[in-house]
């Protein structure tokens, strides 16, 4: 049934990215260099995924007739 994988993964990835950014910004001093590098790479990956999704997405259109017409 109606389900947009693209959109779901955009929201999922974007929210994940937002969380990483918030954490990095607020806890930079407590973050170890290792952790930072891991988050940095993850963040860049998510940025690219989200950007790609926004740029390449194509609107899906469908039509459903009312079930209740009688």
């Amino acid at each position, binding site marked *: 049934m109606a*389900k*947009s994988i693209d959109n779901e993964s955009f929201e999922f990835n974007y929210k994940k990215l937002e969380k990483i950014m918030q954490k990095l910004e607020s806890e930079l001093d407590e973050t170890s260099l290792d952790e*930072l590098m891991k988050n940095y790479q993850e963040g860049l990956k998510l940025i690219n995924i989200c950007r790609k999704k926004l740029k390449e997405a194509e609107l899906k259109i*469908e039509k459903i*007739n009312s079930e*209740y017409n009688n």
Partner: protein
Amino acid sequence: MENNTPVSISELTKRLKSVVEYEFKFVFAEGEISNFKLHSPKGNMYFVLKDDSSSINAVMWNTQNTKLNFQPKDGLKVIIKGRITIWDARGTYQIDVWEMMQSGLGDLQLAFEKLKEKLKSEGLFDESHKKPLPQFPKNVAIITSETGAVIKDFIRVSEKRFPLINLILIPAAMQGEGAAKTVINALKTANNPDLKIDVICIARGGGSIEDLWEFNNENLAREIFKSEVPVVSAIGHETDFTIADFVADKRAPTPSAAAEIILPDKNDYLERLNRFQYLINNLGIRKINNLTSNLTYIQNNYFFRKPLDTLNNFKINLDEFEDELLKLPVTKINNLNTELNYIEKIFFNLSPENNLKRGYSIIKKGDEYISSAKKLNLFDKITIKFKDGSKDAEVTK
């Protein structure tokens, strides 16, 4: 005005003004709009109200006309409430309009107001019932006519704004008798949980009040209220308000505006991603800078620098000492030795141990050496140290 002295025009106008404005401080009139002008940017409306044989200038200020639920235009018959004012500078009079309604639709308007009041008192319009719209909708249902500009506009805006959605068109009749029923059916369909619809938009373009009348249907209003999925209404133009608009979770002034309200903006998010990228790079650089300066700080710390400094100082002293030594002849060194022995002896003679041997004793209170009688009080415990041991004692006097 009995005497022969003429009055000034200002005086005359003032008197006219006081008579006319007092007499016509409330007017309730019906007429046709002509020569309508919307004065931008302030938004004051200037027009003429007329019938077959007479006309009066009228003005509706921007403070009043924002409440209008229709767009005034030439030829429209209206009923107004207001007052007559005189404009001193020109000697003209005009109606200052407070309220204006379209005439000729009295019954419909009355029915509308009645239903609006009824549903309002039942709480159908309450803010507390308004459901929030999702940040990232996935499945967006649009209930509108299958043909026409609305669906095309909505698709166009969606493609531009946020094409990451499934747009689901549920066709319904948007005007004419029975239209409300088809919209109700479409709403029921959109609420089918299998469809996983995140938000519903009911949209139609502008039209006359009769065209939009189906959206003042009570059953439709209740169906919108019942909808589990948030409903955005976009019916007619900005100035058209229907019952459906009041009960919807969100009202959009036009169908295109509805798409903008429902969908996040792709460009906005691309911009955010750019900012994130800039920020994450910055954070990386900041962390490395922090760590580097921490390291430098630690390196420069006293604890790390002190041993090195001490060692260096020691080295310098040693070098100097060596130089001094090398300068001295051998006899001088021997003399120095004798001198050292002598100094050692003096120190020994001055030491407390030596004094004890000579018969003196030392008094201590706790760890404190007592060198004055003033330092001792009655019953203080003291220790007296002799050359051959110590005894504890107490001060008795």
